[in-house]
């Protein structure tokens, strides 16, 4: 695999963009930070599928495309299916000797939102991973169905106010806990699983490069701070992301072959999770006295998860 150097940011900045501007994502949207970095961290040819969601509708506005690679748009549940199908056909044609350029390195990548990944495309993703296709699935996790106006998904965390689980007089918003997609994908047989965030650009690029050079299905959960639905100023996307990783609301770790768990980022000073929550409109109501127990619950869950990850890392399981 032709890897771009990510030793430091200066070297990485000599890579060439393959994701173009004048897409229609909101100002400050993290989706594009993640996608552009994935495309810049290799020189290999890319075949990318993207299902319906903010990324797809904003980057393929007929008659425009923002993609400088082979790119397939497919229905909401089928990012994994399209990438798996293209990969299977590529292998078959290679075997039959009908490829125009059989020696060109190609990588298969699928992008889906959390709504499509955690909920609606879950079964198809699971099938593609089970079949062992050689592809990387990247979930752009903004913890809601952003493109249709901010409905809750099973990636929405407790206490968030969404249009289908709004906070108000009788409710503090989302009641359920976020689904653990990384554990599910690792158990599903993914060769490599990682959680990444764009503010930790190097950590993210290294995970992308590991996934792209791993033989077998890989799953990456990329935190994508959403200025519109998380309700923060567009300039603060990286600031909010820093609060997320440094409060361990989004711990960064990887799981290799379902068994070897490594924590890939340890904040020097761990921040209280309320600092992260206070910076976003979707959690504003949690700071009313009657919702103090939700803040406590949030911190408790973050602490327990961190404890669990550290125990697994130590035990090498």
């Amino acid at each position: 695999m032709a890897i771009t150097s990510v030793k430091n940011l200066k070297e990485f900045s000599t890579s060439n963009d393959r994701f173009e501007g004048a897409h229609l994502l909101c100002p400050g949207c993290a989706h594009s930070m993640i996608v552009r970095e994935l495309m810049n961290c290799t020189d290999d040819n890319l075949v990318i599928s993207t299902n319906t969601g903010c990324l797809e509708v904003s980057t393929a506005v007929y008659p425009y495309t923002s993609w400088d690679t082979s790119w397939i748009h497919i229905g909401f549940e089928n990012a994994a299916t399209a990438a798996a199908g293209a990969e299977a056909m590529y292998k078959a044609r290679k075997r039959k000797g009908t490829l125009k350029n059989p020696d060109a390195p190609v990588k298969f990548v699928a992008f889906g939102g959390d709504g499509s990944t955690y909920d609606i495309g879950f079964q198809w993703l699971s099938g593609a991973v089970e079949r062992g296709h050689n592809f990387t699935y990247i979930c752009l996790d903004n913890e809601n169905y952003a493109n249709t106006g901010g409905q809750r998904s099973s990636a929405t965390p407790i206490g968030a106010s969404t249009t289908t689980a709004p906070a108000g007089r009788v409710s503090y918003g989302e009641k359920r806990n976020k689904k653990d997609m990384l554990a599910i994908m690792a158990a599903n047989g993914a060769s490599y699983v990682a959680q990444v965030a764009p503010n930790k650009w190097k950590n993210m690029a290294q995970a992308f490069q590991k996934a792209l050079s791993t033989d077998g299905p890989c799953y990456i959960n990329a935190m994508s701070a959403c200025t519109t639905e998380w309700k923060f100023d567009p300039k603060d996307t990286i600031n909010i992301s820093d609060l997320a990783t440094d409060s361990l609301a989004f711990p960064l770790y990887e799981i290799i072959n379902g068994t070897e768990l490594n924590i890939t980022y340890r904040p020097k000073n761990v921040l209280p999770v309320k600092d992260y929550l206070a910076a976003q409109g979707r959690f504003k109501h949690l700071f009313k006295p009657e919702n103090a127990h939700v803040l406590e619950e949030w911190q408790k869950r973050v602490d327990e998860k961190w404890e669990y990850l550290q125990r697994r890392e130590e035990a090498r399981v």
Partner: protein
Amino acid sequence: MSNVLSNEKRGMRELGAEKKVGWNEVTHGVVLHSFEDDAADIALRKAEDRKYSEFSSYTATVASWRVIKPVYNRDICIDCQNCWVWCPDSSIISRDKQILGIDYDHCKGCGVCVEVCPTNPKSLLMFGEALSSDDAIAQWPVKEKKEK
């Protein structure tokens, strides 16, 4: 190299300015080619060495989204590339590890680049869209004292 910052060669069009095609006139299974030539080695070519087709959004502009714009001050910049990596609109132009400037055809004025700039004073600041870059640089703040 500087022509990467000039928009003349791109034949910029405002998004949506083209003739609208009704939903029932769009070709089924349409394929849009981003380049006019063979794109096999595109990952190895810089924007100025590519032949973008009229279908690439690179040839379009979203400049009208902005009400405020970032202005870049070369004198203070340390070329750390923070603004390059985090710009969500591929609008910080960097070549040979140096920042050349801002692509105002694709910048939406989010202000992320200003937030992530580590210098003191910052090498990027937001100004009203109508102010010229020269006037903005003339009113650049001086070094801020660290709060104790």
